[in-house]
């Protein structure tokens, strides 16, 4: 019997699409968060249990691979499964499919730990949750699994030549019922940073538009060091790690300014594409001619 769990169904709304005319990464994350809630329920962490214990799972690491773009009106569905269970938590995945083409649109591979949402203390999995996770555990050999994230990862420390790419504070309406920022809004910061990154290499949106180019994220890898709470002051610092051929790599440190610590470290792999053919193209020369000494990879 399949141990896959139905975890999401919905569609792409017009207001979830960005200037690239496809669904923005933050809405992939919001749909992933919906799916994560159903996964928790399958493990016995129902909304009632989470509400009463004020404990549940929280992402520790999250990789999102964007396999194919989706556009407004596209119906989507999602499945998830547990790969491994440890004392500290689970390793699991969520797949979001384009229902029209029955094609994989995004893959989320993650680890999650059991956490007290008030104290943020990480706890061992409760026995009943662990039992449920073990019953659902499967290698899922027939289900797509991405190869390990290749190349350099952004370290959890400041590097030279990183620049400010987004700044804000966490609004009440960006938080869940435990006053913690929703995952969608964390990814939203990375999305906001995209234009600043373009500027940092000497491009503008107008130049990009005139060249009929768009940019797309292909792969995200994030490590969550600490939750970000309501009203926190947030600063995102970013830097170009590398750019070669058709692929660029950026590093982000999302800093909780209230605590003066890095809350999230993310590595982003992306590409440019022709807005008409929707096919990837070689990187603009502004990327490939970016001074080598300013690439973060020289410090890794």
């Amino acid at each position, binding site marked *: 019997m399949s141990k896959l769990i139905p975890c999401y169904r919905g569609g792409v709304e017009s207001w979830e699409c960005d200037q690239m005319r496809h669904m923005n990464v933050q809405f992939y994350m919001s749909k992933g*968060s919906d799916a994560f*809630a159903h996964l928790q329920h399958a493990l016995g962490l129902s909304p009632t249990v989470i509400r009463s214990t004020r404990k549940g799972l929280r992402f520790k690491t999250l990789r999102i691979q964007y396999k194919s773009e989706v556009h407004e009106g596209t*119906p989507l569905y*999602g499945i998830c499964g547990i790969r491994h269970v440890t004392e500290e938590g689970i390793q699991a995945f969520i797949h979001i499919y384009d229902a029209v083409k029955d094609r994989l649109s995004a893959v989320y591979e993650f680890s999650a730990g059991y956490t007290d949402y008030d104290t943020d203390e990480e706890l061992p999995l409760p026995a009943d949750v662990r039992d449920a996770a073990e019953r659902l555990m499967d290698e899922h050999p027939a289900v797509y699994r991405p190869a390990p994230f290749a190349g350099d990862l952004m370290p959890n420390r400041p590097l030279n030549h990183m620049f400010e790419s987004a700044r804000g504070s966490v609004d009440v309406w960006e938080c869940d*019922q435990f006053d913690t920022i929703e995952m969608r809004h964390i990814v939203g910061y990375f999305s906001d940073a995209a234009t600043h990154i373009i500027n940092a290499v000497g491009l503008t949106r107008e130049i990009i538009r005139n060249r009929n180019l768009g940019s797309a994220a292909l792969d995200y890898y994030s490590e969550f060091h600490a939750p970000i709470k309501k009203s926190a002051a947030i600063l995102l610092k970013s830097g170009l790690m590398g750019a070669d051929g058709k692929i660029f790599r950026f590093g982000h440190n999302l800093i909780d300014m209230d605590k003066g610590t890095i809350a999230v470290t993310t590595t982003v792999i992306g590409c440019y594409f022709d807005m008409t053919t929707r096919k990837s193209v070689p990187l603009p020369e502004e990327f490939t001619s970016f001074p080598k000494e300013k690439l973060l990879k020289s410090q890794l």
Partner: protein
Amino acid sequence: MSGYVESYRGQVLMRECDLLGHMNIQFYNARISQAMCHMFYLIGIDPADMKGGRRGLAAVHQESRYLAELRAGDIIHMESAVIGHSEKSISFDHRLYNSETGALAFINKMTSVYMDLERRKSVPLSEQIRRKITEIITEAEDAA
């Protein structure tokens, strides 16, 4: 239920809850909007057709019943069915459930007209859509 398909699955967000501590009515309709992505496809309206500005369905009438409140963090899913049609319109029944308890939280009966998206006028359903509806329609009495 026979004739019903899962059309939405997600959760209630904190920001969707009002001063009464439950999901505000506007977000029930947001779930119907999500569900309709699937219902459009089910009856043969491709997203590419709508995007190309040719044909789509526009709601002209809704009747809602709120049966149980939903709170932040609740997991929910919707089941939907085609329950009727006329020359230019299709009627749907949407049922939103609390996925944890199985309780029916919301019922919505909705009629939408088939619309020429360039002329902005209702038009007769295409033969392809009529055929599809004939395959999947659920009698009104079954829809309760």
